[in-house]
């Protein structure tokens, strides 16, 4: 039975299948429960004891050893919805969230798709068609021009002359891209060929489509995006901006709302442009229009993400609007019920993405067991996470462990709150970027709000390194902890078997002392 709040809905539903894993699956499952909806998780073999499975009312195993057989297997997911009687599917982000054919298959199976139409996904998903549509609709796009380059064709001559026309530095982007994959910057002509080939290879591997295009690279620009919400009755509002300028190799690291670079005038103009962009494809649901904001206040359309985004919480914290709940309402055919004037902006929110990666080794993903996992808590602190203590981190999935989001009255206090929360976020057993996040957050350029999207990639790594630890003291602590047998404590209730004697417990330790 559908929940009470859906009683006026023309298209009610009652059971949501969440076609995702990790923190976003947990977020949507919790939102479903709060909305009075039943929820179904899907999972691969290696996720059988994951948090999202534990939290769902029901779960269905997707058999197979690859992503194509599991989280990217649209047919198996639709079958899982049928077998459990789920009448709606929420795709989260990543995986199948921006696959138009999947959206279409879900709808034709008679299941509600909690997302925009296949047409909107298709149009905005192809960067070249999106760009043409924006030009038609009067939304500003990056100067230069787009030159599609088909994989496999003899393209080097065409590429070089197109590049000369666009000018250097330029950016090579995968047409089907996102998340920094298949994206390369080229500063001088001699690097064009190598970077082009790398971009095309990455694009084919990540998206199954090696088509790339080139675009003028704007220097000293910020990444500012607008969250939009549209209903099926023609209602559309924007929920202000998020600033995601702190990026590493085009992957967002820290996001905030509001942007320190956005004036009320820019906010209004960008908001209008975002709503125009959404309306131009008949968008229904939650989406994000990304812009590059140049230092002179001019902004240009980058792309539209036709799904919920990783960084949606900073908008929720500052507007008080639950975006996942709004997705449910819109999918049920209900009107938004909020006007643009009713969208408020309260305080400042910052999100830091906690990754299992090693900043001292070029940010390579790290693996291991989360032997200790103690997220921070307190007023104005929110942790969206899909893992818990004891879970294993593998390279099978995205290395993001959690999002730490803070809310405070102003930007400076939000920075202090986030830094303090990061310092009490205890993760042992797997290397993370937590220290790096603290160092970036407290860097003068971030504090003063003056960074651009090149900041992390162009800053001397030594400026983003924390204080050198006192190594002898650490050795003293570790050696003492080993002598104390601290590694044997974690087996609750029972004493571990002693490594040397094979007996339960250590007879000397029970006497409160150990002989050397």
């Amino acid at each position, binding site marked *: 039975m559908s929940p009470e709040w859906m009683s006026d809905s023309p298209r009610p539903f009652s059971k949501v299948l969440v076609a995702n894993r990790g923190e976003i699956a947990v977020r949507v499952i919790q939102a479903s429960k709060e909305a009075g909806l039943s929820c179904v998780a899907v999972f691969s073999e290696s996720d059988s004891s994951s948090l999202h499975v534990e939290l769902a009312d029901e779960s269905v195993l997707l058999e197979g050893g690859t992503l194509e057989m599991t989280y990217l297997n649209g047919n198996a997911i639709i079958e899982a919805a049928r077998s459990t009687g789920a009448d709606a599917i929420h795709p989260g982000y990543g995986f199948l969230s921006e696959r138009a054919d999947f959206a279409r298959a879900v709808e034709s199976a008679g299941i509600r798709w909690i997302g925009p139409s296949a047409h909107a996904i298709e149009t905005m998903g192809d960067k070249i068609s999106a760009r043409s549509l924006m030009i038609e609709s009067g939304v500003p796009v990056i100067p230069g021009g787009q030159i599609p380059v088909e994989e496999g064709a003899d393209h080097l001559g065409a590429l070089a002359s197109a590049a000369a026309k666009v000018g250097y530095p330029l950016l090579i982007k995968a047409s089907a891209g996102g998340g920094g994959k298949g994206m390369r910057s080229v500063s001088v002509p001699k690097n064009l060929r190598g970077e082009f080939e790398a971009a095309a290879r*990455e694009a084919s591997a990540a998206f199954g489509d090696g088509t790339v295009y080139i675009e003028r690279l704007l220097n000293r620009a910020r990444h500012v995006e607008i969250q939009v919400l549209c209903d099926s009755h023609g209602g559309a509002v924007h929920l202000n901006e998020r600033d995601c300028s702190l990026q590493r190799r085009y992957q967002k690291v820290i996001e905030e709302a509001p942007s320190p670079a956005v004036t009320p005038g820019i906010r209004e103009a960008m908001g209008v442009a975002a709503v125009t962009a959404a309306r131009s494809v008949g968008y229904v649901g939650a989406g994000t229009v990304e812009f590059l904001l140049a230092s002179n206040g001019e902004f240009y359309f980058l792309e539209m993400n036709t799904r919920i985004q990783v960084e949606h919480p900073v908008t929720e914290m500052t507007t008080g609007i639950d975006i996942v709940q709004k997705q449910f309402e819109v999918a049920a055919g209900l009107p938004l019920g909020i006007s643009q004037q009713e969208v408020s902006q309260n305080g400042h929110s910052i999100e830091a993405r906690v990754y299992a990666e090693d900043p001292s080794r070029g940010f390579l993903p790290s693996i291991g067991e989360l032997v200790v996992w103690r997220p921070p808590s307190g007023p104005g602190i929110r942790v969206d996470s899909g893992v818990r203590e004891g879970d294993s981190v593998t390279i099978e999935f995205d290395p993001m462990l959690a999002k730490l989001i803070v809310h405070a009255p102003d930007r400076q206090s939000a920075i202090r709150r986030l830094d303090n929360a990061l310092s009490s976020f205890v993760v042992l057993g797997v290397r993370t970027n937590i220290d790096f996040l603290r160092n970036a957050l407290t860097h003068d350029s971030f504090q003063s709000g003056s960074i651009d999207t090149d900041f992390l990639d162009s800053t001397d790594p030594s400026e983003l390194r924390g204080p050198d630890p006192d190594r*002898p003291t*650490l050795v003293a*602590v570790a050696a*003492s902890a080993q002598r*104390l047998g*601290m590694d044997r404590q974690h087996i609750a209730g029972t004493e571990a078997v002693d490594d040397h004697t094979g007996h339960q417990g250590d007879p000397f330790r029970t006497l409160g002392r150990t002989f050397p």
Partner: protein
Amino acid sequence: MEWSVPDEPERYKASLQEAEGTVSVTSLTRDGVEVHIHETSVEAEGRPGRAMVKVGRTTKLAHIARSGDTWWVHIDGRAHEVVFHEQGSRTSASEGSLKAPMPGTVLQVMAKEGQRVREGQHLMTLEAMKMEHKILAPKPGGITKVHFSEGDRVDMGSSLVEIGD
């Protein structure tokens, strides 16, 4: 037993003293030379993974855990690793061998056996997590061995390329 911290060659030894559930370090050597530190003592806090650490006159809560030979210590808001070695063991016989930082697939091999390379020279490209990672020479030298060719799968820690002087 000996101790080290990741990426640092020094080996430490600690002399420990115990009393009433507390262990303190009375003397510490680095590569055989005594180093002076503030007296440091650790007392199990009662709950797993937590300990009270006293350095000099200040006492702080630390989170401590072990995985394999690595001890993880979270103190003063930052996590650190300390590696435990059985007496006399050596880090690795092959200094200058480049290990795969993670499992993946070899995309490109630029390094050739017998070639001289400069520090930072691009030797190999690995693909993992659908991203490309460049393997760079950690020091100048001559390539003595290239263990993989394009398309090969590599496990984490596999030696990829060896560089001699």
